């Protein structure tokens, strides 16, 4: 039962009629003073996502500060603490939409000490929008942004070379920056880079085409965002469904119903598919895929794919509960008690060898021991260095973990959702580090 009226529920759309208004998640990154807030403000303003009362407030504050024109950067200032210090201290989320797409933009600050925020923003992003000041070119911050982007597996990068008006729209300067940037991006495994010369302040090539960059024939920034392909086709990846919750109504209408609720992390599932439940290893067959319709009644689906949330019913009466993973029987990944991965430290508490922590992967939480801090990545030199003191806040490095129980995990490069993990402080519950698993160590794991 739901809160809908008694009108018939909307018909389920067939494939051909499925709407194409999709969702793109992107993360921004820029250094201090390269105009990122202005660019985001411009993107919101020129897509008509800023309403009159917000603009009034910005104009009022701009006047109070003695500025001649409205400072669009004020649109994205959030907390009073930030306004007082003139900085951005946290990830903020912005929303805009066009006829083609809805956008969720994670606006992350550029300061050295806030790398953790860029890691956070990039974790869900399919595209990273990186700013470079045309006068300064690629700086150390840019390397850090690219390193994080590559590490987090963000496949698409849009490079906005900003403040082009301050270099008189010099094509040579633009091209030199793009060449250096693309070389760096390639080193981090990023292949898709599209560079756009812009002036966020004047609005050139953000949404509207610049009159001044006559030599530039590529897309404006928004045109690129509208066209970039997003997502990985689910049928190219193996099924993974972390079980969140067991649905057992025990009502007169559904006395024996038992279904496993979860969001497909990857892949496609159809009734009749053979699956394996990890870590127990029990094999069974999917007999039904359920999802509530608008009227609250359960509809049976012929197919479900990532990232849909569904309830699976299985043929055999296995012991399945929260924390288990339902995976394709023919491509289940590995179970392991020893895990190698790259972590980004997000907490003031450093991560040290012999630390006891909790590891969270999918819906499963197990105890873990930091067996070894293998090395630390030095962003400036791009060298792996030893880290005898452990990894401090904002450090990125490789670790080896020993786990108290078997865990099913994938290589992050192949499957982002089931290859990512958190390390959690057992005493106060805080999130210590975000991790990306490397192919599980077969010798230490128990192959299925």
């Amino acid at each position, binding site marked *: *039962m*739901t*809160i*809908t*009226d008694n009108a018939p529920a*909307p018909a389920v759309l067939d*494939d051909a009629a*499925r709407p*194409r*208004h*999709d*969702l793109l998640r992107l993360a921004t990154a820029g250094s201090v003073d390269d105009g990122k807030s202005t660019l985001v403000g411009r993107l919101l303003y020129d897509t008509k996502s800023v*309403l009159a*009362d*917000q603009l009034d407030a910005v104009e009022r504050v701009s006047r109070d500060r003695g500025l001649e024109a409205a400072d669009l950067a004020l649109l994205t*200032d*959030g907390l009073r603490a930030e306004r007082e210090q003139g900085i951005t*201290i*946290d990830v*903020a*989320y912005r*929303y805009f*939409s*066009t006829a083609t797409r*809805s956008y*969720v933009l994670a606006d992350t600050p550029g300061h050295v000490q806030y790398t953790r925020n860029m*890691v956070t923003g990039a974790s*869900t992003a399919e595209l990273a929008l990186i700013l470079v000041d045309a006068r300064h070119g690629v700086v150390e911050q840019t390397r850090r942004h690219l390193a994080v982007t590559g590490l987090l597996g963000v496949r698409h990068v849009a490079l906005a070379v900003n403040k082009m008006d301050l270099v008189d729209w010099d094509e040579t300067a633009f091209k030199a920056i793009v060449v250096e940037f693309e070389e760096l991006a390639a080193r981090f495994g990023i292949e898709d880079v599209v560079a756009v010369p812009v002036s966020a302040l004047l609005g050139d090539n953000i*949404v509207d085409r610049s009159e001044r960059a006559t030599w530039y024939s590529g*897309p*404006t920034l*928004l*045109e690129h965002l509208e*066209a970039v*392909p997003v997502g990985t*086709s*689910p049928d190219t990846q193996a099924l993974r469904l972390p079980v*969140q919750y067991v*649905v057992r*109504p025990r*009502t007169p209408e559904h006395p024996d*119903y038992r279904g496993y609720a979860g*969001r497909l992390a990857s892949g*496609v599932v159809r009734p009749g598919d053979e699956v394996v439940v990890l870590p127990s290893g029990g094999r069974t067959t999917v007999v039904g895929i*359920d999802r*509530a319709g608008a009227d*609250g*009644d359960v509809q049976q689906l012929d*197919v479900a*794919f990532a*990232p849909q*949330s569904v309830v699976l019913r299985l043929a055999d009466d296995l012991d399945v509960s*929260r924390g288990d993973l339902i995976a394709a029987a023919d491509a289940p990944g590995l179970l392991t008690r020893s895990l190698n991965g790259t972590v980004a430290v997000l907490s003031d508490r450093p991560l040290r060898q012999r630390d006891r922590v909790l590891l*969270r*992967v999918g819906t499963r939480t197990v105890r873990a021991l930091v067996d070894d801090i293998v090395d630390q990545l030095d962003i400036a030199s791009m060298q792996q260095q030893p880290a005898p003191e452990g990894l401090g806040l904002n450090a990125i490095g490789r670790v080896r973990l020993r786990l108290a129980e078997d865990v099913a995990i994938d290589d992050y490069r192949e499957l982002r*959702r089931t290859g990512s993990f958190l390390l*959690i402080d057992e005493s106060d*519950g805080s*999130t210590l580090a*975000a991790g990306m698993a490397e192919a599980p160590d077969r010798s230490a794991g128990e192959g299925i």
Partner: protein
Amino acid sequence: MSTTTLTDGRAAEQALPAQYTLDHLDHLESEAVHIFREVAGEFERPVILFSGGKDSVVMLHLALKAFAPAPLPFSLLHVDTGHNFPEVLAYRDAIVERLGVRLVVAKVQDYIDDGRLRERPDGTRNPLQTVPLLDAIEEHRFDAVFGGGRRDEEKARAKERVFSLRDAFGAWDPRRQRPELWDLYNGKHAPGEHVRVFPLSNWTELDVWRYIEREGILLPEIYYAHEREVFARDGMWLTAGEWGGPRAGEQSQSRLVRYRTVGDMSCTGAVDSDAADVASVIREVGASRLTERGATRADDRLSEAAMEDRKRQGYF
């Protein structure tokens, strides 16, 4: 708006097959359902804040869908300012009865009657909700509290997490919030602390209305255009009523209006509108030049940091 496509051809090659393309509302629904199930799996006593406002109604609808065909595994909590629109209270009670769910009501009026809270000079009761809310959370030992807050609503909310950790005083400390990565939500909390959970974080006002239309969700009728006795104060149309209006010098008149948000009657304004159904509301919201809070919430106009300050004190 330009919808020009690129010419490099890569877009066409890599685009998702049509049968695996999710509409953005399906994305948002799947994300919200995932959040509800995470909380059901990780917490002992979750509760949904339910005012009868459109965001809380959409939240309840999503929660019902997340656990179907099982009944809702949560109770509802209404923090009642005492300045309610009668239509909204009637709606709330009808929904509760129809679904057979448990409703806890925390009343601001009780606190004013016994002196624990004092009426503000401006008569607005929205800021007074914080204490009854925190007391209800403590009394019923709720460890997860779902709120309908959206990040598009307001600057301070743009920085809110999906899982927002609150201390024993309900206070929100922006610097203490945990980073949220992928869809791994860390709900660990100490005894006495609780977590506010915002399943609609990534929805916009227009998304909420489009979803209401798609799903055929019923709302209190004051969301649609109707004739009402109103008077002007602070540039908004307020409903005449026992709560304290109109004052001397404020003329009441009958106008065709609707509400964009539903809150305390004393600070929630109506807008002139002839949008009598969902489709007309969607057209109106799409064309509006004002945010819903800017248009209709006196409490958010108080200062540039009004919401930030209230959140720090334990507000939703």
